[in-house]
């Protein structure tokens, strides 16, 4: 148990709080903390992406609202919040309104599984990898719902594309998770991270480089990012599955996409790049002579920074790809993922199993 939890329990027992409250409040606190964190990250991410693309194409990017445009995303969100609710004629009302909700809530749930630091693991489960697989399939359903209920042909094609793409991309993605499970012998994310803690060479990217590449590409497909942004291909389908959504409903899809980008990057960092572990093998806070509580606190902050740094680098690569690559066609995406990614991912499981066996013998 983390030191925070112990302090919290100590405090709650001293004020004579009932048992159920201690338990419920802890979850509530972590929920609020994580939810706020997600919203802030997404806001920063949207701005960062716009600034990065501007930098890449030698423009200035947003620079009107706030210093260097730092409040631009907030201004955009406020604008979208006040937009009129436009309801197209031929919609299937219930499904139409469920879709934007469905896109954001599962993503939020997946967010809880990530061990942010050794002390902050919002939802520590012995089968968090399995949960990750299960919950990650839900946002695709939202895309499908949006495409089918909008009563728009462009949306319909976008929804169909999202559906075919999801099936083909999630299989290699999940097969890579199996290879990680084989390496770590666990489905618990925290223990996966702890196995990678000694040095940079303990990171799973080193034995499992193939798995890392496959996971990264499949994650790009799941995120609907360029070059796989087919469901919302602007030049073909105007806005794809969310053509008929405006205002806050659109913002949900938009934020959901960015949140998914962030979360999947954090997952890649957790699974392959050692998660919150320091690449140096030690923490700066360990070197200082401080009382244990402060030291633990500083260490947690440091771990959080490491995780965010690794995630940030991955996101930078994703944005780089977006800035420089054209879009693939549906056909080629499917061929790529069924004929190349999936067989390679299966092959990778065998390699990892043999690697594990050899390591246990030698």
């Amino acid at each position, binding site marked *: 148990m983390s030191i925070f939890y112990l302090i919290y329990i100590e405090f709650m027992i001293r004020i004579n709080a009932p048992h159920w409250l201690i338990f419920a409040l802890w979850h509530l606190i972590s929920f609020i903390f994580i939810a706020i964190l997600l919203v802030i990250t997404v806001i920063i991410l949207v701005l960062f992406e716009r600034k990065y693309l501007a930098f890449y194409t030698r423009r200035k990017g947003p620079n009107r609202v706030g210093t260097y445009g730092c409040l631009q995303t907030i201004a955009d969100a406020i604008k979208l919040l006040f937009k009129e609710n436009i309801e197209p004629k031929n919609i299937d009302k219930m499904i139409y309104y469920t879709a934007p909700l469905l896109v954001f809530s599962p993503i939020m749930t997946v967010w809880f599984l990530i061990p942010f630091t050794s002390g902050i693991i919002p939802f520590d489960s012995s089968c968090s990898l399995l949960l990750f697989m299960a919950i990650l399939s839900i946002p695709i359903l939202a895309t499908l719902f949006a495409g089918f209920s909008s009563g728009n042909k462009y949306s319909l094609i976008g929804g169909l*594309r999202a559906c075919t793409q999801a099936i083909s991309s999630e299989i290699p993605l999940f097969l890579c998770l199996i290879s990680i499970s084989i390496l770590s012998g666990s489905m618990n994310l925290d223990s996966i991270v702890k196995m990678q803690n000694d040095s940079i060479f303990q990171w799973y990217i080193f034995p499992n480089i193939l798995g890392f590449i496959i996971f990264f590409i499949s994650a790009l497909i799941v995120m609907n990012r360029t070059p796989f942004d087919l469901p919302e291909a602007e030049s073909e389908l105007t806005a794809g599955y969310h053509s008929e959504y405006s205002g806050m409903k659109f913002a949900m899809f938009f934020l959901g996409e960015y949140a998914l980008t962030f979360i999947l990057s954090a997952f890649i960092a957790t699974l392959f790049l050692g998660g919150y572990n320091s690449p140096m093998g030690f923490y700066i806070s360990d070197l200082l002579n401080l009382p244990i509580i402060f030291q633990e606190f500083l260490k947690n902050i440091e771990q959080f920074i490491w995780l965010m740094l690794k995630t940030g680098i991955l996101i930078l690569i994703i944005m780089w790809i977006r800035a420089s*690559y054209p*879009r693939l066609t549906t056909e080629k995406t499917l061929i790529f993922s069924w004929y190349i990614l999936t067989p390679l991912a299966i092959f990778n499981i065998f390699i990892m199993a043999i690697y594990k066996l050899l390591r246990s013998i030698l």
Partner: protein
Amino acid sequence: MEVISQDRILDINIGPQHPSTHGVLRMVVSLCGETIININPIIGYLHRGLEKMAENRTYLQYLPIVDRIDYLSGFFCSYAYLNGIEKLLNITPSEKAKYIRTITMEMNRITSHLLWLGCFLMDLGASSPFFYAFIEREKIIDILEDLTGSRMMYNYYTLGGVKRDIDIDILNRIKEFSDHFETALKEYEDLIEGNPIFLSRTKNIGLINKETANQYSITGANLRASGIKKDLRKDSPYLIYNNIDFEVPVLNNEDSFSRFVIRIKEMRESKKIILQCYNWLINHIKDEEIKSNINFMHIKPEGKVISEVESPRGLLQCIIHADGTKKPYRIKWRTPSFYSVQLINNLAKNYKLPDLMSIFGSLDVIMPEVDR
């Protein structure tokens, strides 16, 4: 071919307002899944009656309108129109005027191709090349703005020459631009040409074979990408093109990719022509005669004439029927995009929906030119 039952076909309306129809083309596309069964291009959403307008205007009054026929290459339309009148009136522009016309037209060709490059890549889903192309395009447009006073609707040519003389400052800027243009072209090639996704989207897609090209009377870069070496600048040189050393790039692959390569090569050739014109003009900076002394307002030509020019999109013809009055009896424009747009059903049939954008984008169709 197997027969597809009617209930499996989805008719989808692409355009007139759509990000990748380059203006206001409307395409009624029949899809089976994502496979295109049939495309019915519908034009006319940008019809401004430019041919009819000629009939109730004097020759001078019609001159500024001519630039609007193709807003991306206004110089070519102006030249085609004025060259026709000059032929009827037996006016020969001075040597310097010819060189100025050539240098501006070639710069215009580069701007047009650059815009095409950006839009084509945008259609394929890459956003950055659009901005890169516009950085260079902006430089040329700035030069042309200082020379002509306008950024796109130049209205710069006049009877027997050009309206304003070119000065040493502008010539130096042109030189500076063309010296640096090679690095920009290299950058586009590095970014685009080797990209596997770009290759997979364009190679062996949208094949125009020689027969089809001739049947549809395709001209310009689209024709040259199909292996037919036809360029008016070489075949029947106008202006000063026979004094100038340049090549006409030809490729035999017939696909979208070769149309991309051809246009990049053409920009290189245009740059060569610009440099040669610069060398001539810098030596003849003192020449005064840049236009004829005939009063444009009172001309009354008579006869029929066809005047041609190799525009960025192909063969542009202006057919003038003059009846000896102040106003033309009839003016007919033969614009190259009008012929390219008809190809779309032939080319994109049986391809997938995303390929439609890559094929249509590669044809370099400009809607105002189609509708006129």
